[in-house]
């Protein structure tokens, strides 16, 4: 009991006074929980820029500026970035005429949904099992987490060898059938991501208040009821973050896609070759390095649409799962 109480005391309590403070002080309060505000905020207000400055500059150089430039370039015809010619909405028009883009969109959507469900269900199950005081659970956690440390390209090639090692026994290969390509990619992503999501779920499960679990036990709730009525509502913040991560990861997937199948096989539909296992990011990449003089602008327009899509979906999902979170 005492352990839980102590933990709750250290939790972040929003400072009501914060509303009247300068924006900078509010930032300071946010990071330091609004406590010790007098002792901490004065020197921080004076020297804070020194700490935040370099990161802000790096963020502007490495993210904000390229992002703005990227949006500008989506309205241009260009071969190199510093030599672009304004082209209007032509690029956006050609994006929607491109059947391969539409295909890769639906393919990515299907992939994102399936991988989201599988990764989260398995990650939660593994995390739940490993918080039940099993012997050697630390070892299991390490082993499950490890695939996440390998880069996507390497993983793609390793798994293509594994899959083809099996499929060649049947005289075929993962590059020949889009269904195998799809499930191959799902298996790969599950293998890589489950361990990562598991860590987040374990942190969430450990934070479920003991007194609630105890109360449920005293009230005679079964394990199943405790899981659904007490544990899951309490780990909703973890579920929010994990579903957000796996949804956006699913949409943004590139390395694994290019290394495992590179879009193969290709089928010709209405005279247009469609890469059956090409996801959005790979489609943008392939468009960018096509030979048409307008191809780069089109790819850039695709990238802007891609951003709006991923950001929109991610935010919508966040808003939805946030509503399900309970306040402790």
């Amino acid at each position, binding site marked *: 009991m005492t352990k839980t109480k102590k933990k709750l005391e250290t939790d972040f309590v929003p400072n009501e006074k914060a509303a009247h403070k300068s924006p900078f002080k509010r930032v300071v309060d946010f990071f330091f929980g609004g406590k010790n505000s007098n002792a901490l905020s004065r020197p921080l207000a004076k020297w804070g820029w020194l700490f935040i400055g370099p990161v802000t500059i790096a963020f502007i150089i490495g993210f904000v500026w390229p992002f703005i430039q990227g949006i500008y370039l989506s309205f241009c015809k260009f071969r190199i970035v510093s030599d672009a010619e304004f082209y209007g909405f032509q690029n956006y028009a050609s994006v929607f005429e491109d059947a391969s883009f539409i295909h890769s969109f639906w393919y990515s959507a299907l992939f994102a949904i399936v991988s989201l469900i599988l990764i989260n269900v398995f990650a939660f199950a593994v995390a739940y099992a490993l918080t039940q005081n099993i012997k050697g659970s630390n070892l299991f956690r390490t082993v499950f987490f490890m695939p996440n440390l390998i880069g996507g390209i390497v993983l793609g090639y390793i798994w293509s060898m594994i899959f083809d090692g099996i499929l060649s026994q049947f005289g075929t290969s993962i590059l020949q059938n889009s269904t195998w390509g799809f499930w191959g990619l799902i298996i790969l992503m599950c293998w890589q991501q489950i361990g990562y999501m598991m860590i987040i779920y374990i942190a969430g499960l450990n934070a479920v208040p003991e007194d609630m679990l105890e109360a449920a036990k005293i009230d005679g709730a079964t394990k199943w009821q405790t899981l659904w009525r007490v544990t899951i509502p309490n780990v909703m913040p973890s579920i929010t973050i994990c579903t957000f991560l796996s949804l956006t990861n699913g949409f943004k997937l590139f390395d694994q896609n290019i290394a495992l199948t590179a879009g*193969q096989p290709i089928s010709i539909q209405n005279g247009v*070759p469609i890469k059956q296992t090409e996801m959005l990011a790979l489609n943008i990449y392939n468009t960018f390095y096509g*030979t048409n003089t307008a191809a780069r602008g089109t790819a850039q327009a695709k990238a802007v649409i891609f951003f709006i899509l991923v950001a929109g979906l991610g935010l919508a999902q966040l808003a939805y799962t946030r509503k399900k979170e309970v306040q402790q």
Partner: protein
Amino acid sequence: MKMKKILAAILAASMCGCFFAGCNDSGGTTASNGGGTAANNSGGTTGSGGSVYWLNFKPESDEVLQKVAKMYTDETKVPVKVVTAASGTYEQTLSAEMDKSDAPTLFVIGNSAGVKQWGDYALDLKDTKIAKELNTNAYNLYDANGKLVSIGYCYECYGIIVNPDLLKQAGHELSEIKNFATLKTVVEDIHSRASELGFDAFTSCDMDDSSSWRFTGHMANLEYFYEEKAAGKTWTECPATITGDYLGNFKNLYDLCINNSISAPTELATGGHDPSNQFATCKAAFTVQGSWEYSAYKEKAPNAVMIPYYCGVDGEEKAGLNCGTENCWAVNSKASEADQQATLDFMYWCVTNKEASKLLVDSFGVMPYKNAAESSNAFLKNANDLTTKGNYVMDWATNYQPNVNEYRAALVSALNAYNADQTDANWAQVKAAFVDGWATQYQAANG
């Protein structure tokens, strides 16, 4: 507490260090890529002020080029920097490098698609000193307005490479092979006795990225070439459509390769058999490859000979090898005049200096210049001998493949399906990718 402060200071310092390290990379990369002290002064501290920056696209030639660059710098004090794009990333590297203030002054525009993409950035090389050194116009690339965009600095050839020593062991002679029918007899005989002989007919026909171009790029050329020949003209730009009239001949040779090789046709999609090594270690008597492999083969297969793509076309007894190039120099039109002049001088020196051209010829192939060194490459000699005998040269019509990466990817996919199951229906898919794919990609590239 003190410890904490020290730790915090170290962390803050290292963070700043990481950030500012990014601002200071030009000196570092130049030094490591330049090879030689002079290359470090790429800013141009020499009298004339010009310097050369060559963006090379062949990783296998990097070592030689660094050597040549150093020789030139030692001789003239003009800084030459050679940077080599990692395998298969030339287009990406060029896009990034051309955006820099210190852009390449010398780069490669190797085919008609390249002319379309990068032609605007190329200086017209007509009437330059190096253009006057050329002994043929055959390997130059022009744009639609007749601008000489890029100039061939060497040419290569490809065909079927045979190891005559292995043929002898199997009781055959190279002289038996005169056309497709005789090639087929020899190949099928060797393949049928492979376990007894200890070697097979063809090396593996892998369809992964490291090998598929031997078929979708090189062997496909026979179809385009015979189409050109039947029409009585050579292409000067990419045609909007092709007829596919000679696809049956492509199929003849292709079937012969995949069905008489070390690896079964069903095992080719993801590759990994290292065909080049198979030939170099005498595991197979035939391979489809190019003259640049000569140095890899000359030790173990010193008598290897390159023969034409025999595919069952009438009169193919008079066929020669596929000769052409993608090695064409272009000079950056946006570079400063001093740099352009320095670059042109360097190019001229490369093709006229005895020592330098010897090094380059041994690495690249024949240099079509009046005063360049002779090549010691046996496969290129085969090409010349066939031409002297009056056989026709098969030019690289394959260089006109529209939207080349996408076109070949579709072809690979169709060939994979055909390899797994050699039915007429699957061959129809290959035909669709080969012929209809051309028209589609032409539209995509030019629409």
